[in-house]
């Protein structure tokens, strides 16, 4: 029987890999994938704690996170397509119209 804190630790590690991806990579598609990775790390924590408490609330929230991720992916990829059509780049450093 694995204690829930192990799952929380794994979740923290995966979340930090996602944070690193957002901070270190400049390709917006990979930044976007890192965000999905962070969402999933949090899902893992939700399911582990839901199992530990023996109720189903955490799983319901994971369900909602999945729907939000689906909507976010659709809109986000639409935005990326639009940017690529106008600027011919997916490098986050070259998309600086609104940068101060």
């Amino acid at each position: 029987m694995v204690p829930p804190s192990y799952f929380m630790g794994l979740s923290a590690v995966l979340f930090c890999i996602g944070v690193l991806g957002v901070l270190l990579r400049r390709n917006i598609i990979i930044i976007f994938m890192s965000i999905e990775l962070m969402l999933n790390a949090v899902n893992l924590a939700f399911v582990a704690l839901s199992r530990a408490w023996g109720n189903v609330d955490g799983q319901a929230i994971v369900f909602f996170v999945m729907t939000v991720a689906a909507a976010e992916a659709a809109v986000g990829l639409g935005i990326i397509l639009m940017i690529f059509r106008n600027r011919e780049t997916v490098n986050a450093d070259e998309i600086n119209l609104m940068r101060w």
Partner: protein
Amino acid sequence: MPLLPFLFLAALSIIFAAGVILQRHPVHSLLSLVLTLVVIGILFIGLDATTVGFLQMIVYAGAIMVLFLFVIWLLNLQSQPIEGGHLALKFVGALGSAALIAELLVFVLHLPPPVGHSKPLALDYGSIGKLAQGLFTDYLVAFEVTSILLLVGVVGAVALARRTTAGSAPGGAP
């Protein structure tokens, strides 16, 4: 879930997650991400959350990732060296992530054990019926709002990705 399979799956998921941010080609990153999501789905099933685990594999690793794949192919992205960027940013990023991970690990390792930890689970825990019971009673409002969210997402995606015809103002009606 026994310890040994957990350690194996945990190592696998960390390796694939590192692959997401270390691969040069976006498609390889995406395949790493799909494998990470599948491994997390297996972990869900190991945690007796069977329905959510399969949903994770079908919806997340299946549908959402195919959307990513289509966009990468549509943009025809090629393999690029990992971008330079500012060295200071990289340094601060690595330092911040290390601090965050240390903080989170210290925090979770000092968590008190949950109250119902040793309680035996209900027989239908993690079944689709149990999940639906929660979704349609306690979370009914959130569930209905979700449908509006998806509708708005679809409309937004179509409005954004629509190719405006020549002669019309960009973003305006064709």
